[in-house]
């Protein structure tokens, strides 16, 4: 048996097809039944008008009712098609979203499991909790930073399956870091758009923040943080999504002073970037507070070793610089 979904590859595992819960078809089914009501009422109406005494009138009622019933069945069939062909495919290495936007308008997107950063399960209301279905929100570092599997059955089990696959796919990648060439990072979306897409803030919050921004000398994230709209970790995650690189929580990471000092203090202070890890293969992981194409290019020009990049909270980076670099003697005080 061959699989015919887009960009298919040879898989050892049978891909898992996930659709919205069958209850999503309840509303179209009810609508179809309501649409059938006029057929049964029409005979009463036509009898009152007197058409039913005319043979041609009766024939017309029968054959046009038949056409109308076919129309209603076709309406339900269209809804069923939307339900059936709007699916998510979970393969051994990625998640494929097949979205039917409208008839003859299909959107395909895919996400490698090694790009997944966060998975959330969302079950709202009585129906979803009684019938055990809900949404799975997948946060990624990919071009499409947010994936939602809507109204899927048994979301908790499915999320755990995706999470397991994500962990498995990320393990071998760490060992292959040495073969990974340093890539030029570019922002995918504006940070405000990402935060809105993630549901952390609203469009109105962005507009208010943008109005405050001119002349303040602050970045949008800082203004939103000061307004208590987002946390520092939200900024890190949004930057990670924006530049499609992983985020790191330095508060939970044991830094090694010798590793940190691989980057000269002047560069670390100037760019707010520190080395957080050095793999046995010599790949240096650099955490930076404000990722940018220019900063990456600058750091790449400074080092011969291959580099990988991460986003971290600015305050933790400043703290690490204070902690791990020796204090410079103030020449003025020496005199």
């Amino acid at each position, binding site marked *: 048996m061959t699989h*015919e979904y887009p960009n298919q590859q040879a898989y050892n595992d049978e891909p898992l097809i996930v659709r919205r819960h069958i209850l999503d078809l309840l509303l179209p089914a009810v609508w179809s039944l309501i649409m059938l009501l006029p057929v049964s009422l029409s005979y009463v109406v036509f009898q009152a008008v007197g058409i039913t005494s005319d*043979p041609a009138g009766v*024939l017309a009622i029968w054959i046009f009712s038949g056409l109308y019933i076919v129309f209603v*069945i076709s309406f339900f069939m269209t809804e069923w098609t939307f339900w*059936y062909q709007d699916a998510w495919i979970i393969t051994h290495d990625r998640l494929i979203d097949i979205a039917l936007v409208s008839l003859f308008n299909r959107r395909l997107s895919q996400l490698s499991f090694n790009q997944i950063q966060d998975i959330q399960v969302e079950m709202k209301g009585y129906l979803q909790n009684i019938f055990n279905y809900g949404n799975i929100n997948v946060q990624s570092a990919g071009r499409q930073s947010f994936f939602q599997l809507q109204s899927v059955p048994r979301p908790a089990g499915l999320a755990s399956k995706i999470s397991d696959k994500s962990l498995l796919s990320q393990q071998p990648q760490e060992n292959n870091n040495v073969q990974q060439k340093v890539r030029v990072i570019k922002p995918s979306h504006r940070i405000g758009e990402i935060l809105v897409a993630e549901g952390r803030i609203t469009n109105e919050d962005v507009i208010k923040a943008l109005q405050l921004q001119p002349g303040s000398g602050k970045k949008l994230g800082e203004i939103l943080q000061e307004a208590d709209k987002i946390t520092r970790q939200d900024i890190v995650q949004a930057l990670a999504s924006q530049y499609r690189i992983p985020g790191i929580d330095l508060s939970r990471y044991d830094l090694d002073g010798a590793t940190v000092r691989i980057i000269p203090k002047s560069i670390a202070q100037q760019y707010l970037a520190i080395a957080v890890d050095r793999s046995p293969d010599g790949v240096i992981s650099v955490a930076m507070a404000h990722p940018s194409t220019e900063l990456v290019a600058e750091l790449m020009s400074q080092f011969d070793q291959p580099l990988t990049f991460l986003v971290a909270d600015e305050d933790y980076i400043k703290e690490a610089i204070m902690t791990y670099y020796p204090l410079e003697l103030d020449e003025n005080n020496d005199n």
Partner: protein
Amino acid sequence: MNILISIYIIFFLAIATYVGINIFHLVKFRIGFRGDKTNVAIGLYIAIVIGVITISWIGGILAYNQLLSTT
């Protein structure tokens, strides 16, 4: 009667187009995998559509003849 049949043909063609679009969409955008029910769905759909049209015609002709014989 001629007018009735003409109007019926117009409506029939419109509904037939809709049914055709549904079937074409199902075939064109099918996701091929083990356990795919597209063929079953199309078969069932066509059978129901033909069944409803046929029954409506048979019912209509029977009622037509019954009324003619009683009047």
